[in-house]
């Protein structure tokens, strides 16, 4: 197992290098460069002045030189500066954006899991009951409702319609992050609980919008997977030897039924780190998805590189972790 892990980790190095080359090339080869817009804004800029600016931003060198410069700095932990924010790309991505994304997407993922597994189990155990039909219906609604529509709908409902029509109904925030700083808590201006409450208040709608799709999806998977396991011979054996239904269900069936869910969750985690561009856009939430999107549009290469290379690393890493987790969940799987 240890040798296997080390081997997999070593294999990741060329993979990540290749990924970084591809990402860098795709970024640099997209039409236009970061200074194009400037030229349109300032007609009086001369060719020489423009070249001087290109030099200042290192855009005058050929692609491969720029890549190796970037790589040699990146392996030393220097991911360069964000051209549009002026701060180190690493600080922007890992300090400002990643924690906020982890909070939003992490909560959404947890909520989706916490709801989907019991509901899926319930639905499978009571197959073809009224409750099962209701859950199936709802999960198809959740499945087919695009997040951009659900988001706007939630906003309109909870920030305008309900407060307008029901006196005393709280008006939900229309997005963004709360106007409280962590420094306020440290200086004692506000209490920790108030700070937490403000964040929770701002996160309710985006978390619901973001989790609905996965919740629906995983409920269906959980239900299907458990039903399949419940029809296996060893379940019949377990029942035949007189085990209680509880033990059959939770000890024999559920553990096996969870294996495909582990795969799904493992694959979903890099997605969590990558943020949810659409949800973040609708709720004006400053997370990774927006950061990557904006960086691509504004040709902020260092930021896009830092974020995308990080995602490549995380995808590779979580694939490995999911593989290792199989071994834990399923005793039949052994790596050597």
């Amino acid at each position, binding site marked *: 197992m240890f040798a296997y892990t080390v081997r997999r980790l070593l294999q990741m190095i060329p993979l990540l290098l290749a990924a970084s080359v591809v990402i860098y090339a795709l970024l640099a080869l997209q039409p*236009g460069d970061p200074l194009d817009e400037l030229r349109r804004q*300032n007609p009086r800029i001369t060719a020489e002045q423009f070249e001087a600016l290109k030099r*200042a931003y290192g855009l005058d060198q050929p692609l491969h030189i720029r890549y190796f410069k970037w790589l040699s700095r990146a392996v030393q932990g220097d991911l360069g500066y964000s051209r549009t924010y002026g701060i180190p790309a690493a600080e922007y991505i890992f300090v400002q954006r990643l924690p906020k994304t982890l909070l939003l997407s992490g909560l959404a993922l947890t909520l989706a899991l916490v709801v989907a597994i019991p509901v899926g189990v319930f639905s499978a155990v009571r197959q073809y009951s009224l409750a099962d039909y209701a859950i199936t219906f709802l999960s198809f609604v959740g499945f087919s409702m695009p997040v951009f529509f659900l988001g706007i709908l939630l906003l309109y409902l909870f920030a305008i319609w309900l407060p307008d029509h029901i006196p005393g109904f709280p008006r939900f925030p*229309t997005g963004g992050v709360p106007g409280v700083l962590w420094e306020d808590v440290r200086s004692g201006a506000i209490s920790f609980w108030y700070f937490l409450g403000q964040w929770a208040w701002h996160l309710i709608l985006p978390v619901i919008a973001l989790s609905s799709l996965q919740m629906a999806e995983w409920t269906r998977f959980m239900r299907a997977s458990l039903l399949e396991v419940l029809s296996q011979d060893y379940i019949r054996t377990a029942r035949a030897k007189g085990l209680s239904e509880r033990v059959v269900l939770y000890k024999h069936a559920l553990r096996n039924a969870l294996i495909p869910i582990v795969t799904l969750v493992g694959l979903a985690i890099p997605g969590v780190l990558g943020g949810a561009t659409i949800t973040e856009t609708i709720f004006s939430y400053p997370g990774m998805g927006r950061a990557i999107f904006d960086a691509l549009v504004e040709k902020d290469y260092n930021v896009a590189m830092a974020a995308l290379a990080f995602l490549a690393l995380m995808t590779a890493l979580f694939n490995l972790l999911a593989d290792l987790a199989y071994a834990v969940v399923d005793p039949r799987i052994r790596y050597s």
Partner: protein
Amino acid sequence: MQKVGKLAVLGITALGLALAGPQDNSLVIGASQEPRVLAGDFLSVISNQSIKSEIEQYLFAPLIGFNANSENFPVLATQVPTQQNGRLRVTDIGGGKKRLEMDLTIRPDARWSDGKPITTEDVQFYFEVGKAKGMPVLNPDYWERVNLRVKDARNFTVIFEPAYYYDTYGSPIGYAPKHIMGPEWEKVKAAARGLDSDKDAEKLNELYRNFFLKFATPQALNRGAMVYSGPFKLKRWVPGNSIEMERNPNFPIKPEGGESKYVQKVVYRFIQNTNSLLVAVIGGSIDATSSVSLTFDQARSKQLTSRAPGRFDIWFVPGAIWEHIDINKFENCQTVRDLGLNDKRTRQAILHALNREGLVKAFFDGLQPVAHTWIAPVNPLFNPNVKKYEFDLKKAEALLAEMGWRKGPDGILQRTVGGRTVRFEIEYVTTAGNAIRERTQQFFAEDLKKIGIAVKINNAPSAVVFADDYIQRASECKWTGMFEFAWVSNLQEDGGLFQYKNLNTGAIMVPTKENNYQGQNIGGWRNDEFDRLTSQAVLEFDEAKRKALFARAQEIWAEELPALPLYFRANPYVVRKGLVNYVASAYSGGYGYPGWNAWEIGWESRGAVKKWDQAKYALSVK
């Protein structure tokens, strides 16, 4: 003390909900963009976002302001330099070049928010930083021409060489707090010693950026790293949420009736998604919108307009963004010769066939008026009496018949050129994904079909069509017909968009291989009289004479039609009833944002006196 802080913080979060406006004499402005940096980045080296310039109007007062009527007025300077008061001198320096000197005096009561006086040392400091070797300024043309002569602590002269008339618009120079930023700058200078502006351009850039950042990030500003000189000072910046500014008692200009009658606190609320911003406006938590906020269509949406009466005014301020169709006129392109695009009659015929009045009525309720030249009607140089091309298919057909075009069997015009029969099928390029432009394209394609012109749509994302190897390459026939996009019609108009040659600098403005594809005259128009008139006009410091030169240049332009003018875009603003002097015009403050007179903004119910009427500068939905 702790309790006070607590109340302050609770107050801000409450603002995010519904309580705002006249109740506590504050102003909440909604914006869809958040500045990356503020204040310390005084040369806009790190960021030149419009939201940054807009907010900085509250934090820093210019020496000379530019009001909604496009006139200079003194703010922190005692007087506007004019030839009449002897503070403005123009001299000939030979070779057709001029030299401009402007004497300025800083108000004796001008102070930073920490109480320190604003002096010529601060102007000198600004000048020194801007002139530093390898400083990646975005307006190098300005920095190459400007010079400074300091007389004493309050008097100085700004010199431009060569000088152009627009150097007299607004402040000729800025200033920055030397007592705050100076020590750090000395360190940067020491580190930059020995670096070469060519070889070490990247290193210098990084040094300079780090310097500005120390006084510009939310963290630095919340720590109090910066001082301010405007009517407001920054109190708190919560990234992703808001910026709160409070009145700066050291600001020397007091509005009518005393500053207590005007807003005491200005909060910029950032809601990136404009649909969510619209929800917030409807919900009532926003008093006014910024210049970077709702889209034109959102401001006309029924959800908003039906709730507006008695609550909001919705203004559409005609701006300086000029939507137009450029045309390839390079004779070396076969398509151009075949279609006769290099002949003004073809261009006139096309313009007669485009129902522009119908377009602005159908799509914009007439709130974005049809343009007749490339100069915005709010620009003092605008000539309203140029030739106008009304929608007239008969005239269009007659002009085309004159050029030998006849309807072919498929209803499309054709003619014989050099023994070949050519069809009138014209390429129409614009930015893919821009819904308004794509709708416009469909609308015009229908119009053109009526006179027998087939349109071949060839759209691509803006990054593709605006890339150097596309837009700048009409000379190599990369695009061969019509190209719809927008220019900003500059207040500092110099005719550069349509000059073949700038006679003052000698630069060729038509992008070809010979000049490394530089220049904005992308369609390749050449009219020597236009070049002469516009080149002469920028050296003319007498406004009447300058106007006459530009008036003639616009007549030539409208006759020759190097490009087809469509309309000027309007910027929408939603303003709560009772808020006064929150007024924008196309060039107010230089860029056309509200807030150029921040100290006069207030609520009528709180005793603020209305000095500026937005209705004078804008259209409104009926």
